[in-house]
Structures are given as C-alpha cells and as structure tokens.
C-alpha cells in the first residue's frame, strides 16, 4: 500500500511540474522595428539618405513561393532579387517544391531565422494563416503575393482577383451566353479549391453568372495547378460534352493541358479557351490558336512593386501588421490580335520578351 502511494505521489508531482510548463500559441517576443520616430519635414538630404539606406542595409528579404520551376514564380524571384540586392539587402529563396506541408515548414524555419521581410505565395487561405500571425509577432513584415491568406498582413500585391473573375465571366457570357449559337456550356478548371485565387475568382465569376442563368457550368474541377491533371479532366469533359462552348482555366500553364486535350478531341476551333496569367506559353498558345484569350496581370511589375512596398515598410518604422495595403497590378487582355506585341508575355529570364 505504501509503495503504491509513493508511486502515485511521484506521478502526480511529475504531472504538476509538466503542467506548469504548458503554454499555447506561437509565443515569441515582438520587437518593434528600429527607428519608429518619424523624421521631421525639414530634415537634411543627408539625414534622409542615411535613414533610408540604413533601414535597408544588410537586412534580409525572404521569398517562399508554392514552388519554383515555372515562369511565374521565377519572374517574381528574378525581379525581387534584382531589386533587393540593388537596395543593399540580402535575398533568400526557399523552394517547397509544390508541397503544402513543406511550405509551412519553410515558413516556420524562416520565422526562426527572422528576416526583415517575408514574401509568401499562399497555397491556400488557411495553411499559413497562423504562421503569418506568428511572423508578424516576431517582428517580420509579411507581404503576400497573388494568392491571399485568411490572415491579411501588411501588404498584398497581386491581381485584382475579384475583378479578374468578373471580367473573364463577362467575356465568356459575350462568347457563350444568350444570343450566341452555342450550347452555353462552360467548363471551369480551378487550381486548388481552397486557394485564395480560386475563391476570389469564383466569387467574381458568380456575381456575373448569377445574372446570366443560361450559362451552364458543366464541370468545376480542381487540377492542382497541374497541366497533366487538367488535360485528363478536360479530355473526359470534352467526351461528355462534345458541344462545350468554353473552357476556363485559372492559370495558363495548367490550362495549356486542357487546351491540348480539346485539340486532341478535334474541338479546338469550336471550344474557346479562357485563362489568366501571361507567361510565354500564353503567347505561344495564342499564336497556335490553342487559347482564345488570357488576362495578364503584369507579373514583372508585381515583382518590382513588392520591392518598393518592402522598402517603404522598412523605412516607415511602423510595427509589422499595422498596415493593410493592397496593390492590384494592371489587368491586360491578351488575345489573338495583340499577342505578338512587345512585352505582352514574360518568360522568367529576360526583360522585354516578344513571342513571334
């Protein structure tokens, strides 16, 4: 009896000690960025320069896309690297290789390293929400690019996705809606169902399609930004609906696979392919009459805009999380009439690309 008593006492004591160590939350110190005092308007140019350069020098900017190996993210990285290094900052890149969990891991480890600025390209609206919060608490400015999270941080740079959805939906209604001699059938190929891009584009599209009930959305599938998956989905859909009017994919790299499937089914001249983003493949596809139209959202500008906003945030001295900026870059419609103009598309490697 005594022995049992002693053992339970020991166990209880251990549990007590363990419980006292319990805590929740990301838990880390939050130090406000250096400076904080505003500069007077009468400050000398020398002092202004000192403050500006000093806020940036030696600081690190980190970028975590969903994955490299595609012109979109590579163009961003290229622009950012050029811009940040010109400003005297270090640029760090992490490649999660299209894996959600690895992106979370990468962001977590970057929070441990504490860069000055963190640029994230969210896989979906939930996965990095808590981490972004944690990063801001740790004193890191977070800029989100193109795909937004549930947790809004200091700045968002990207396409005006809600407007984009509205515009493309309107264009589709023009081509496939009432008054056209088509079946009014539309296929939608999403990226990820829970991606910020998808949700916002779908919200914009809904507001238009709700007013045009004749448009029948025969298939809404998530192809996970993967060309092959889009191809497979579309080949099934085109079999089921040979009279399909339009196929709308949310990303040109992915939608190229859908277009190929439609071409293989021999329907490419009947089915109109809509998409967004303007990498080189869009211009080539428009040239080869695979795409009908695409909306570019000025990807190179997005890269340089990020650098500008980062510079501003770093010099402002305001604590991370206190701003709420959204920078929507211009939407440009590219179709078969203007695809071969200069700078319409980009390839992630050169400036001023022209596809011919």
């Amino acid at each position, binding site marked *: 009896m005594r022995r049992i008593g002693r053992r339970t006492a020991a166990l209880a004591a251990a549990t007590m000690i363990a419980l006292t160590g319990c805590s929740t939350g990301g838990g880390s110190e939050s130090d406000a960025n250096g400076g904080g005092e505003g500069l007077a308007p009468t400050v000398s140019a020398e002092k202004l320069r000192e403050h500006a350069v000093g806020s940036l020098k030696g600081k690190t900017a980190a970028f975590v896309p969903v994955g490299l190996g595609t012109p979109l993210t590579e163009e961003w990285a290229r622009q950012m690297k050029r811009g940040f290094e010109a400003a005297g900052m270090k640029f760090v890149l992490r490649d999660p290789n299209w894996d959600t969990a690895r992106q979370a891991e990468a962001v977590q480890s970057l929070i441990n390293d504490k860069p000055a600025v963190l640029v994230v390209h969210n896989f979906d609206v*939930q996965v990095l929400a808590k981490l972004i919060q944690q990063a801001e608490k740790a004193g890191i400015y977070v800029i989100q690019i193109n795909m937004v999270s549930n947790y809004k941080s200091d700045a968002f740079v990207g396409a005006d996705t809600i407007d984009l959805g509205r515009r493309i939906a309107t264009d589709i209604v023009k081509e496939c809606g009432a008054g056209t001699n088509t079946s009014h059938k539309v296929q939608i190929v999403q990226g990820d*169902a829970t991606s910020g891009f998808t949700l916002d584009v779908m919200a914009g599209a809904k507001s238009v399609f709700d007013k045009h009930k004749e448009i029948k959305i025969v298939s809404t599938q998530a192809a996970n930004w993967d060309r092959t998956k889009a191809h497979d989905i579309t080949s099934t859909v085109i079999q089921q609906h040979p009279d399909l009017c339009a196929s709308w994919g949310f990303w040109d790299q992915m939608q190229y696979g859908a277009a190929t499937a439609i071409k293989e089914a021999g329907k490419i001249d009947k089915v109109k392919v809509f998409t967004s983003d303007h990498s080189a493949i869009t211009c080539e596809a428009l040239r080869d009459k695979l795409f009908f139209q695409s909306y570019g959202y000025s990807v190179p500008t997005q890269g340089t805009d990020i650098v500008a906003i980062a510079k501003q945030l770093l010099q402002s001295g305001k604590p991370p999380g206190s701003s709420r900026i959204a920078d929507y870059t211009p939407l440009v419609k590219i179709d078969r009439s203007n695809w071969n103009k200069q700078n319409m598309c980009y390839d992630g490697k050169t400036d001023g690309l022209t596809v011919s």
Partner: protein
Amino acid sequence: MTESVTPRRVTSRRPPERNVPADETLGMKLRHLRRRIALQQVFAELFAKRWMEPAIPLALLVGVVVFFSIAAPGFATEQNLLSSSAELAELALVCLGMAVVLISGGIDLSVGSMFGLCNMVVLLLVTLSGLPVIAAIGLGLLIGALLGAINGSIVAYLKARPFLTTLVTLIIFRGVLNLLDLNFSAQTATAFVLDPIWEWFSTGKVAGIPFSFITLVVVLLIGHIVLSRSRLGWHITAVGASRRAARHAGIRVERVLLLSYVFSGLLCALAGIFYAARLSSASARVGEGMELTVLTAVILGGISLSGGKGTVWRAFIGAATISLLGKGLLLMNVGGEVFQTVLAGVLILAVGLDLKWGKNRGKAIQKTYVNPTIVQYGDLPDCRPGSGSAFEMNDRLVGAESIGVGKVEGPEDVILDKQGRLYCGTRQGWIMRFSGENFENAEIFARIGGHPLGLAFDADDNLVVCVAGMGLYAVTPDGEVRKLTDESNRTWTRLRDDSRLRLADDLDIAPDGKIYFSEGTTRFEMADWILDGVEGRPNGRLLCYDPETGKTRTVIRDLVFPNGVCCSHDGKSFLIAQTWLCRILRYWIDGPNKGRIEVFMENFPGYLDNINRASDGTYWVALNGMRSPAYDLAMRMPVFRRRMMKRIPRDEWLYPSMNHGCVVKVSESGEVLETLWDPGGTAHATITSMREHDGYLYIGGLENNRVGRIKLDNSPAESVGAGAPSVAGTAAS
C-alpha cells in the same frame, strides 16, 4: 617454484590476480596495467546488448544530425529542433502505424490516403458541423479506426493480399477525399475556429516541447510496452513471423491482423488531427505520396518487410532521420528534387549496412569478445622421470580400478555417502549412484540438467551440487531435486549482466552452514570455458549462499577462474584453486585474519581443478592438465592467442595439455607431499577431482567415461566431506 611456501604476512591488500615473478621490472608492471584496460571488451559487450540491434539506423540518425548541424545554418538551434519536432511527430505517428502492420506481416499502402481523409473529415467536422471540438476529434479517431478496419477485414477475413488490398483502398480513400474536397472544402476555407482545445492541439506546448511530440512519446512508450511485453504484441509478432505457425499455436490470426490495421488507421487519424489543427489545410493533396515516404522511413529504420521483426523505436528512428534530413536540406536551400536523390542514397546505405550488421553482428561480437591478456608463469618445475623434483612422474594410477566404465560420461566430481555409495555427475545432467560390493549397481539418482560439477554433503545428508549452466542445487536423500540459488547480486559497474550464475564449479560448506562456491567465469557460457582460458582475465568470483536466509552474495570478485573450493581442516579458511594461474589462494573466514586473502601455493606444473580434504590433515589437489612450454609461451603473448582464435578453428587451437594430469597431496603449510600420475593418460586424462574415502582414493575426470579407484597406503577409516550443517528447510529461491 615453491615446494614449500614461506609463510607470508597476510596484508590487507589483495594479491594481484596474476603471477608476479620475483624479478618483475617496471616495464612489465606497466604492460600488465595497460592490458587491464580492455576497451575492446566494452565495445563487444555493448554490441551484444539487445538494444544495440538498431545500431546502424541510430548511427545514421546521429550522422545526419551532426552533418546538418555543421552544414546547415540554423539547424542546431533550439527553436528549429522544437519546431521540427511537431512536423516529425505527425510523420512518426504514421510510420508507427505502418510499422505495426509490417510487423504483423502485411503492408499498408493506404496510410497517406487515410491521413489525408482524416485530416479533411476532422476539418469539416470542426468548422462546418457545429459539433464540439472534442466530439469532432473523437469522431475523427473513430473514422480512422473504421478505415483501418476496412483494410483489416478485407485482409484478414476475405484473405486478400495486403499489398493489393491497401493499394485499392489507397485509391478509394483518395477518391472519397477528392469528393469531399470538391464539395465542401471551399466552405471551410473562410471559417475560423477559436477553440482552446483546438489551439492546444495546434500550438500547445509543454515546457517548450510541442504537444504533438509529447503525444508521440507517450504513444511510443505505450506501443513499446504493448509490442514487447503484452500478449497482443507477441501475437502480432508471431503472426508476422509465421502465420501458419501462429495459427497452429492457437492464436486468432484474423483478429490480430484486423487489430493491427485498426491501429494503423487510428494512428493515421491521430496524425491527421494534429496536421489539421496545425495547418487547417483542407486540400485533397494532403498525404499524397506520403506512403512512399513512410515506407522509406520504416525501411531506413530497419523494420523487416517480411514481417515478424521490428520495434517502435526503429520506426521512430527512421521517421526522425527522414524528417531531419528534409529539414536540413531545406535549410541548406537545396532543391526539392535533390531531396529525393539524397533520400535514395541514404536508404541504400542504411539498408546495406543494416543487413550486414544483422548478419555479422554475432560474428563481430564473437571476434572481439575474447580479450587475451598476458599471463606469466614461473619456471616450469621438471616433472620428467629421473628429474628428482617433488612432482616427478610415477605410475601410481596405472593400476587403478575403473568403476562404471562406459556407464558415466564426464564425472567431474565424485563423493561417497555414509553408506559408502558413490555419487558422481554426468554430462547429461544426471547424478549417478553406484552401490554394491564393487560398485556394480549403477542407477540414476537424480536428473538435474546442465553438467553437475562440485559435490558435497551437508549435515542432513542432502547432496549439494554445483550445476554448470544452472546454479546451486540440493538433492535430498530420496532423490528430490531443489534449486538453492541461481543468481547473485549484479555488478552495476559492468555492462554485462552477471547476476545469473553461468559456471558454478566447486563448493564446500563452512562449519556455520554457509555454502561457499566458485563461479569459474562470468563472461562465458559453460560450453566456452576454454575461451576464458585463452583470455586469462579475472572473470570469476567466489560466492556464498546462506541457507538460513536463502540469499547469495558475491564474496570475492574478479578472480582468475576459481575452480576448486575447500574448507580447511580447522574451518577458519577456504582454499581456492585458480586454474589458469596454477596457484591456490587462501581466504580467511574466521580468526584474526578474517576477510583477508593470501597466496597459499603457486607455480604448480599444471592447471588446478578441485581441492578436497585428505584424512590426515592434508589436502588433495587435482591437476587437470600439464603446463607445456609452448602454451606457457603463448600465455605470455596475447596477440598470438588473439590471432590464433581468429584464424583457425577451435579444434586446431593450442590448448592446455589436458591429456595428462595428476593428483597432488599438499600439507597445511604448503608443502608437496606426494603425487600420483597416469603417464600417457590412457585411463585418466583430464583429472578434475579426487575424493578419499575409507582408505581408497576415487578419481573423477571431466571428459572421462569412468571413475577410478586406488587403494592408499595409509588408510584411516574416516570419510571426509561431512560435518556441515543442513540446507534443508530453509528459504530456497
């Protein structure tokens, strides 16, 4: 050499466990000192431990950690390791599930899909269904168990092959997940859950360590206990090792298989819950390709794909290696493709080395276990006929009678009771008894096992016997066998567990009833006693069993193969014969020198075995073999012996010359009085004991097939060996 011993002053310091020549130089002393530290022995005993089996995966894990601590900045920080542990916990839980299924002989390829599906289900329940979080978590676990049960029932009751079954369920579960994703995930995207329990699951920390990791540790401990010490765990391992044999043994194979798959599903669900809480990612792609990573992890850890072997720790080591490897490469900013290549390389290395380790571990231990040291001897006394020394060879044993020729095998010791019946042990583990005029009636008195060696009678006529390989036993006059003890206190400063008695050799009973007996060596089993001889280290001990309390304790530690034990005529000391040192020690148990040890006689020309009291106040000593000059030289050169052991088979080794032995009579003051030889050793090779009774001397030999008997010239009619208190009626273990 000492034909008569000059009485030494008994110092409190114990004599060194080696023969110290009179002219020993400092260099020799240092050489001996250096040889005492046997680093190789530490390694050999370490590798012999069962928990060193996963030595290679563990070494790999340590290697990965060390490498990345140097190469990747920020790897070895506390923050990084703590945050990595949360990610590791999820992977490790799934690996654990896979490991349980592998051990049961199957495979579960659907772990990735189950993980993703449970993640999605829990998220939907928590955000959309309105159930309290606890209920959602419980339901999630239940669903995981259900998914596992689907796998398990198909495999167990429909007798389908696990590979195919789980491949199909992989697709089915992933399909269900895709459906859910398509229809519901968009709705979860904007929901924000603010529940303390949910918070706890996602970011809860106990003393800085994430809650998921704590849960993992608890699950590992439970899993280890269940798998290694509970009936269910043994059944799982048995089914995995041989399903047919398990069925024949009466194990409910189907139930066990079902349970193992249910465990797998349950653990995937638990991992999925932690993932859902941490990342809230309701995507159909969660867990895609995870089954390959998990499989790689368990194989890396060394769990056999064919089933029946494996521990939870191996699964954990594999998961930790892969997780930390990925983390390290990420921190080094190496691209994702490289991760796969590096993983493949590490896998090949791990599997190759682990296979070799498994096959060769026994051999590696064997080759490093024996650590010969320098054993020096004095000048060899000349025993040849005509030499005139006290040990001069004669042929007094040539005419000895043979008792029980061909009926006994290996009578190491012989003793006679009050009625004059002869007892001896045999290598089959029996005690034979010979009775009658000429000992013509042979019968098996008791069946004990092992190889009964030293014999003695206590005051109640119980036959107390040292059984090699078993311990100390007592046989009542009716032939009933009782174990007295088979263990002693463990030496905690040694790696090897020496609490069990391996080679109880000879015994004698002190006047107060305590039984003092020798254990020849603690490092080798009974069949390998010769290895102790080749090693020559102080591996043996003298123990004392107290019949009153039933306790055994080690009286003298670290003796070089103590063999014969004999209480002196006055009951105040014990003589201990040390085989490989060819000397006798005296250990005082009473009187002014109580507790001290001195050298009684040394530099015998042969290897000593049993000692027994003679009828006239003197002692009989058995020499079971002669010292040959070649072997004496080999004992001075440990490298020679070590190489000999490694390169040639045991049958070819140089052995002590055990085909020629003799019996020596020595006085209380250490003088050699007479010797009895069988030159040529045809009838009596390897003489291990002799017993005087009623004017006759009875000769026992460890490898012989008879007991010898010769008539002695001076013959008082007393028998010796009696007069000790009883061991009956006392606490026996």
